[in-house]
């Protein structure tokens, strides 16, 4: 097991290096730079040169990359050009906010989607199955920003049950924080549930057709026992993989949901750093996202044996 973890971590190093190189280069290839944005239309070449020098942007790109890489090895991701804050604590803080939103949403989605998808597959072609498929397709087709706005308008504006803007950390005030999280979590849950239901239903259908399920039924097991003990574990494998991808993707920031619901998460930070051409911040954010993706998928791989004993033997 230890060897597996180590090998996965070692293979992640070139991936992360390539990601950092790509991010570093690509952001600088886009027209516009932080100094131009800071000066706006109040252009003064002398001020531009002075500010570029102060930020180290007048050096060759290769040199800038090496300086950044050197600092990176000592755990220093630099400082945001926009706010002057240290990048690492800022990214960690914003990641914490996104993570609480995403983890809660994905957990709720899973709890809803797994039984729903399984029952839909078990009752294939019934009206229940049909409504689950139609509902799931609709949910996954609706963009999250639109879903978010509809929730805002209905529960925030029409019913006045929930606050339309603002954010309170649950660590500061648990109940107030919970209230502010309801709508963004709901927007994510609705969308992700649609995706997960489709996957659970599809993999359950595959498993239900296998011989050992027929054998289990022939042994006289009830349908509930067949589903719980024989179908669920085998059908959950592909869903678990998808969950890993969804988590990795969402933990990298849910920019749209965070923007609509004014949540100061990692996604909004990434978008702001792109618009502001905040190079150190964007590099730090994307490197962190890449690491998150690697770690989440590693954890997903390590958990496979729990659901599928065949993986353990391999």
């Amino acid at each position, binding site marked *: 097991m230890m060897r597996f973890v180590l090998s996965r971590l070692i293979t992640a190093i070139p991936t992360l290096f390539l990601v950092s190189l790509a991010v570093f280069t690509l952001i600088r290839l*886009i027209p516009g730079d932080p100094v131009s944005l800071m000066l706006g239309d109040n*252009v003064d070449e002398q001020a531009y040169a002075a500010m570029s020098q*102060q930020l180290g942007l007048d050096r060759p790109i290769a040199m800038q990359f090496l300086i950044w890489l050197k600092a990176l090895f000592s755990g220093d991701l630099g400082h945001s050009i926009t706010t002057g804050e240290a990048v690492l604590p800022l990214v960690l803080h914003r990641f914490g906010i996104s993570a609480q939103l995403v983890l809660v949403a994905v957990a709720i989605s899973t709890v809803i989607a797994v039984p729903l998808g399984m029952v839909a597959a078990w009752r294939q072609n019934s009206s229940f199955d049909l409504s689950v498929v139609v509902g799931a397709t609709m949910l996954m087709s609706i963009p999250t920003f639109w879903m978010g706005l509809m929730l805002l308008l209905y529960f925030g504006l029409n019913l006045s049950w929930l606050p339309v803007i603002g954010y309170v950390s649950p660590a500061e005030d648990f109940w107030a924080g919970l209230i502010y999280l309801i709508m963004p979590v709901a927007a994510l849950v609705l969308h992700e549930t649609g995706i997960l239901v489709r996957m659970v239903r599809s993999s359950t259908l595959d498993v239900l057709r296998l011989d050992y399920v027929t054998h289990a039924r022939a042994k006289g097991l009830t349908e509930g026992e067949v589903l719980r003990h024989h179908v669920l574990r085998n059908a959950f494998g592909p869903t678990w993989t998808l969950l890993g991808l969804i988590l990795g993707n969402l933990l990298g920031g849910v920019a749209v949901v965070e*923007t*609509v619901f004014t949540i*100061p998460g990692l996604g909004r930070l990434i978008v702001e750093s792109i618009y502001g051409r905040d190079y150190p911040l964007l590099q730090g954010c994307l490197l962190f996202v890449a690491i998150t993706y690697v770690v989440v998928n590693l954890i997903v791989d390590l958990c496979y044996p729990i659901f599928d004993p065949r993986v353990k033997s391999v």
Partner: protein
Amino acid sequence: MSSKKRFLLSTLPVLGMLCGIPAAAETLNVQITADIRSSRPGVNRDALSDSVALNVGEGLVAFGERGQIVPMLAEDWTVSDDGRVYTFTLREDRLFHNGAPLTAEIVKQSWEALMAAPDFTCNIYFNGNRGSAVERIEAPDARTVIFTLAEPDAMFLKNSAQSLCGGMAIMHADSFDGDGNWKGPVGTGPFVFDEWKRGQSIHLTKFAEYVPVGEGIDGYGGRKEVLVDDVNLIVTPDRATAVAALRSGDLDIVPYLSTSEAGELTENPNFQVHAAPHGGMITLLMQTADPVLSSTEMRHAIAKSLNIPELVDVATNGLGEANASLVPIGSVYHGEVQERAIDYAPEEVSALLKAAGYSGQELVIQTNRRNPINENVAVIAQSMLQAQGIRARIEVLEWATQLDRFRNGNFQLSAFNYSNRSDPALAYSAVVASKEDRGSAIWDDPEAIELVEKTFQTPDGEERQALFDALHELYLEQMPFVMLANNLDVSVSASYVQNYRTWNGFTRLWGVSLDR
């Protein structure tokens, strides 16, 4: 809400008073489209940071409503005959938010600290680059501050009152920690900078010891009476969310709204929409170094193809007003001469095109979607140009990309907005320069450059007016770009908000009250 419920709710404050329960704090909730960059006036700033800084800090002087200089922390001042020495007398009753009284020594320290800051935006105005260098600052007694300039500079007061310089707000030494690092603003303004939750909100509280001066609200100066207990500036990047929050009562004021969104709310009795022009400029820039556009006839053909009043009306959803001059409509220098414009004359266009040697070359209009007015201008101008046989194509760019092209002069036509300039000389200096010296220069003409230089050296008065008149006549003759209108402050507030207006792009929070 039923009338019974409404009645019960309306009696609650009275019952509260009778029972000795303190009245609930009057909190003003205001949208801010993005987080501020820093809390230090004039350092690592943008327009939103300036807006917060100017509610918290005050300089010696400030801009009044019509762009004139009005006293602020200085009661009055004198200028020496040679124009180099400015002597300010400070007001007696001013206190900092930490309770310390304002003294000349603190003014001196505050200016010196700001000018020494490496990322102070306005260094160019005080180091001899664009304005005269400040040679020395002296504090001979507690109420007198003397600034000695290296050479006479008629713009010294105006430069120091600029919003991008944070109005050169005087900050107490307690604004810094023991190591000299910026901690937070301790100013003399009507609001105290209480708390900044990065990415979320900024909380300002009423400065109870603040003594308002003057008769009425006057730009960044005048009477600054705070009529609420505190203000929450809530970061709300999404416009649709901000409008929903305004409707739900989570926000009381949305200070910057697009003209189209504001237009939708104009008829709604629950909201007040205010639109007013400021010193920013909505323009259609022309690259005079471009082979096609280097011809004056070609540029005149473009100008005469555009029905500017109609273009401005449509582009701003009926809220804007055409202005052919770089002198803002509200300025004391906007007179009869500035009213003159190149009239819409489609019948003259074909002759001008012929004289320019135009043979159907395609012109590209750059624009962005960050400011919907720019995009509207590009679309309407394209249609008007094509109607006169001038081929035009629109290229929509992300704002940073358009700004980069602007900085390098890499465009043919550009639907571009200049930010607010508090003095017409600053507006002219933004466009007039040698293209060799500055890639973003639009109007490269020796006569115009000389005239602009003079506006910087000439004190306010008739002589300065004559210079602005001459510049406008020259502009109409050469037509180096098309000035369309002044940019707009469009704000929306709930019907119970009294006296709020965004002024010159600035969220002015004093004088605002709530009447729920």
